[in-house]
């Protein structure tokens, strides 16, 4: 979704965190880091409720019909999901929050969790949300053919039971203190018990799905929503594959909000008074990296990893390759999101990089790269110049994006590659991408790192776990294999005067949007 990039499988890579729509719940875990979610328009602007709002959102022709929680893909499908279904927990305003859950608590060793549900919530068909619905929902989204089944790999699904109408017990296969952030926050939509066919989706969210075709989904406000009456009466989500077409539709007045426009588009329209550009900030971004595999020469030498980090001019990369529509990163995923260790900003030191390269005897490197996201090839070409200044000749091995990801063997065994991640909370990222079995673990983390990761995941106490994950981030910062140089921010555009749109993990929430006063 970011930069309008992403079809098909690569789009699936973006499925970092997704959950339900709005939340009014109490904050969970201490808010380590986490800026407020960006909001379109001026804060505090006096807008008025909108009768209708149309949105152009990324879409791939292979996407299932929007509203099917078993096959969420990109843009349009995600946005419809988050407006129709409530989730047990969500990331909202930069914090982990309860939505349908009222509390989620572990037993002593975090091998079993108890979910207490909010009472008095109803589905769109008027029936109450009960524990049995949650049991059915978790089992359904946790089992294939759900494309998010892997999120539930740690859950003993047959053992999930309804204790009473508002209490669910969730046994895990291994003790996990991070169950809430690694599972419920990532994906926990709730739909009625027995619902297996999603042709007519029913949730308890702020919008009801009334009609759809191959490209357009029409939602109407659920006026009795427990979280408050939505401010937009009718929401139309239009799937548009191409970023320029999404912007063109906005400029032609066919939609009021365009999700995922190109950096060029954002620059061009910056001075257009009829259009407002909304930047997602690091919290809604792709994290772009040059990944070094620590298990392979020459990157098994920590001096070489440090040298590359110091040789890179992050600001120049962001300014040129991302046309300035992004921000610099400091080698660790998770900035501006809960649990980030607030690591110091990296600065360039060419002299020291040159000395380290010379010490380690490195004069030539090869980077496997491709246009994985818009700007990645330009960044790679700029890296050639930057490393040259540090005395290293860099060769580029360019591939198409499809070929780049398709060759899983080379991905795992190439020492130096361009790569991108979804910027998601550090604990979720580290758990998903840096463990030993992840095929896309391109930085080659060591066995003892993985033992520390498993220990951190199992820690039941929130503060202790936060500390353990903080230490892992520090380790990545000091020793890890990612030269994470920039955040390619989500870029949206709206008709002037549209305000109150929240962006959470690159998913837009329109239930509190307003129009010009």
């Amino acid at each position, binding site marked *: 979704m970011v930069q309008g990039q992403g079809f098909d499988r690569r789009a699936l890579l973006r499925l970092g965190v997704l959950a339900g729509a709005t939340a009014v719940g109490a904050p969970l875990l201490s808010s380590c880091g986490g800026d407020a979610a960006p909001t379109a328009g001026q804060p505090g602007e006096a807008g008025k409720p909108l009768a209708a709002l149309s949105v152009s959102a990324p879409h791939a022709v292979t996407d299932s019909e929007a509203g099917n929680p078993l096959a969420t893909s990109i843009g349009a499908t995600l946005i419809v999901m988050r407006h129709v279904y409530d989730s047990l927990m969500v990331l909202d305003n930069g914090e982990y929050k309860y939505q349908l859950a009222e509390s989620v608590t572990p037993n002593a060793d975090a091998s079993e969790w108890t979910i207490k549900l909010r009472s008095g919530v109803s589905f769109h068909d008027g029936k109450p949300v009960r524990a049995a619905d949650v049991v059915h929902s978790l089992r359904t989204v946790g089992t294939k*053919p759900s494309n998010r089944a892997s999120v539930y790999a740690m859950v003993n699904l047959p053992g999930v039971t309804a204790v009473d109408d508002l209490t669910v017990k969730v046994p895990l296969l291994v003790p996990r203190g991070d169950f809430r952030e690694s599972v419920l926050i990532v994906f926990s939509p709730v739909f009625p018990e027995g619902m297996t066919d999603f042709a007519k989706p029913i949730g308890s969210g702020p919008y009801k799905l009334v009609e759809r075709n191959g490209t357009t989904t029409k939602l109407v406000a659920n006026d009795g929503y427990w979280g408050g009456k939505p401010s937009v009466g009718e929401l139309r989500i239009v799937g548009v594959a191409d970023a320029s077409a999404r912007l063109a539709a906005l400029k032609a007045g066919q939609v009021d909000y365009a999700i995922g426009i190109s950096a060029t588009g954002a620059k061009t329209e910056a001075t257009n008074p009829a259009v407002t550009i909304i930047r997602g900030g690091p919290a809604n971004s792709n994290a772009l990296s040059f990944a070094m595999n620590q298990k392979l020469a020459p990157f098994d030498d920590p001096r070489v990893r440090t040298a590359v980090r110091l040789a890179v001019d992050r600001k120049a990369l962001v300014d040129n390759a991302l046309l300035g529509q992004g921000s610099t990163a400091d080698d660790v995923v998770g900035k501006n999101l809960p649990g980030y260790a607030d690591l110091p900003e990296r600065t360039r030191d060419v002299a020291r990089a040159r000395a380290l390269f010379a010490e380690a005897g490195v004069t030539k490197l090869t980077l496997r790269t491709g246009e994985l996201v818009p700007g990645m090839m330009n960044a790679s070409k700029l890296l050639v110049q930057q490393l040259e200044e540090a005395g290293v000749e860099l060769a580029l091995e360019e591939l198409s994006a499809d070929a780049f990801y398709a060759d899983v063997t080379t991905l795992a065994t190439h020492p130096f590659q361009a790569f991108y991640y979804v910027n998601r909370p550090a604990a979720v990222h580290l758990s998903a991408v840096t463990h030993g079995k992840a095929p896309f673990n391109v930085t080659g983390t060591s066995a003892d790192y993985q033992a520390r990761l498993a220990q951190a995941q199992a820690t039941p106490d929130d503060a202790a776990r936060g500390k353990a994950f903080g230490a892992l981030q520090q380790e990545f910062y000091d020793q890890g294999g990612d030269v994470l140089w920039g955040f390619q921010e989500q870029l949206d555009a709206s008709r002037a005067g549209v305000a109150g749109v929240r962006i959470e993990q690159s998913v837009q929430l329109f239930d509190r949007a307003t129009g010009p006063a």
Partner: protein
Amino acid sequence: MTALRFLVRRVAATTATLLAVAVVLFAASEVLPGDAATSSLGLDATAEDVAARRVELGLDRPWPVRFADWLAGAVRLDLGTSVMSGEPVTRIIAEPLGATGLLVGVTAAVTVPLAVLVGLVSGLRRGGRADRALSAVSVVAVSVPQFVTAGLLVLLLADLVPVLPAISLPPLGGTPLDKPDVLVLPVLALTLFGAAWAGRIVRAAVIDADGLPHVEAARLAGLPERAVVWRHLLPATVPPCAHAFAWLLSGLFGGTAVVEIVFNYPGLSQTLVAAVRNHDTAVLEGVGLLLAAIIIVSFVLADLLVLLADPRLRVAAR
């Protein structure tokens, strides 16, 4: 008897062609890097997930075996299901086929008469001012890449002078026909290229036909020019033009990807491109065979048209 033999031979040739297309598509999908297991799983999938998915999709078997399996289904008109969405191929293809059919139909209805008119005017007044102007416009229209033409049309008619929609959104519960203005820009983009390209071929055919003895004879016999053109010259242009239009029609069905993307038109080309990217072999075979069938039928129709237009062939066929 001869006609029956002709028909049998044609059906056999068509079947052989479709089979060859099916084999080539299947093999091509195999040669591309990666497979459906990796393309349908995400970044967080483990090596075990990929291996399990491969078994689930039957990708652990050699491709000729999988092809034979698919073929056995295909002859029973079961084209299989998509590895991405799990939906039957026929259902995946139905909506884009309808949308593309409509787009191609409207485009052809505008393009063919326009191309004939352009070709006729240029060919009959070759070297004249009209010919030179039309030739210049045609060369530009054919040479400019389609995404530029389409982009310029959006800029002109949807942005600067906002009279038409920038993207083609069929109304909910309806078809593009219920809101015909969504068809205008895509049809215009396709027609500019199609009419210019086909117009050049009609022009050449008109020039060739103009020198034919029977046309010359008709003129010398004192027939009015209009009768010469309609009764003698135009029929002589049918054989070369019929095949050009058959090409155009096939090209429109399979080659509208750029226009579909710029205008977000929900047609077949996008489905085809996505199927290739995702190693979605069943969908690829479905769309590929459909397009091959359309090409074959277009050319059979062109042959029939030629047969009707050329008395010598009619006699020979008997």
